[in-house]
């Protein structure tokens, strides 16, 4: 690995990537190593948050403002009697990149909905096996207890 990655100047110029990678790895570890299904879902949500942070952070421009066109610019544009094809005096470098914001706006709400679906499936798993621990579910699958009736019977 190139040692330049760990130089202070490189870290401070790219700290957003460090934060998203650390968050993402916490989520990935939780998804791989945790035994409890709910903890796996928490890991998945942390993973999603890391990706949202990544997208939003690459849309930032130094010294720019949110992508809502300034009132003064629009007032000037609307007061001119110009023909078809005239554009307001907008410099793209003055406004943050709107595209990552749009993509993440929908991703957040869809993420909540899919998390709800995952929790619903976890509830059904608990109905069926009486546990959310992965090893206990596996034990139940391989050696089902004869006395227990299926919960949905």
């Amino acid at each position: 690995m190139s040692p330049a990655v760990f130089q202070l100047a490189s870290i401070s110029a790219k700290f957003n990537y460090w934060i998203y990678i650390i968050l993402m790895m916490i989520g990935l570890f939780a998804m791989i190593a945790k035994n409890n299904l709910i903890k796996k879902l928490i890991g998945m949500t942390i993973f999603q948050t890391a990706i949202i942070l990544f997208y939003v952070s690459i849309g930032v421009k130094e010294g720019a403002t949110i992508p809502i066109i300034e009132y003064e610019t629009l007032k000037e544009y609307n007061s001119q009697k110009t023909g078809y094809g005239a554009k307001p005096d907008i410099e793209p470098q003055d406004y943050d990149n709107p595209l990552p914001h749009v993509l993440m706006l929908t991703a957040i709400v869809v993420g909540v909905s899919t998390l709800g679906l995952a929790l619903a499936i976890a509830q059904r798993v608990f109905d069926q096996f009486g546990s959310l621990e992965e090893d206990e579910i596996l034990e139940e699958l391989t050696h089902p207890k004869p006395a227990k009736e299926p919960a949905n019977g």
Partner: protein
Amino acid sequence: MQSMKIIGGLAVIVTGALLLRASHDFPDWGDPLSPANDSQTSNYFLENAYVDAKTPNVVTVVLGDYRAFDTMFETVVILTAGLAIFAVLGWTQREDIKDAAVLKAVEENPIIGVTCRLLVPVIQVFALYVLAHGHYSPGGGFQGGVMFGASFIILALGTGLGSALKRFRDTRALVVGAIGVLVYAGIGFLPMFLGDDPGRNFLDYGALKEILPVEKESMARSHAILGIETGVFITVSAVMFAVYFLLASHGRTKDSL
């Protein structure tokens, strides 16, 4: 189990190291000339959003006009998630748990009850403000819809699920969610029957100039964006509440559809 943690930890460390190495080649934080920030599309959006749709908030224009097809299917995904949760949990109900205790109003605590009754209308009015003001400030259908759904969830947490369901019937929640998608798709289909003889494309709102009291196509787009955002608002708020009451009651609400 211990071995799983070691293998997982190793995999995570290797992946993290690779990603860190790759991030060295990424543009610096806040670089205005990075490939993502100086791309033709995002510059086009910033320069033309107001000319095309008379809406200062560029994010709203991209969401509701340039990428309207994408947003429509995001809304469908949310509705599908709501339906899927109902399909997974809704059939578990058994006769003996139909009148489960979860549906009865919780022991009325005056402080919580009064706080909820005071908060809920304020939250709902603010949600509608976020929806309607999405053209001029951060906001829109998704954000407002989540807030509106949250107001019902607060009611359910504070005064019992039963009293929240009295105000928003569980039998209607998913139907209302479908109506939101219908509003969105309906506004999308309208331009196909308007305009010149072959009609316009799906979701090409400029043609709505003929039926709306506006002079310019850009103004018609501005109004149509509010219309489709309303559809998103309806779907998101209904599905948020449906997800909550289905999960909280373990799918034991009386008859969810």
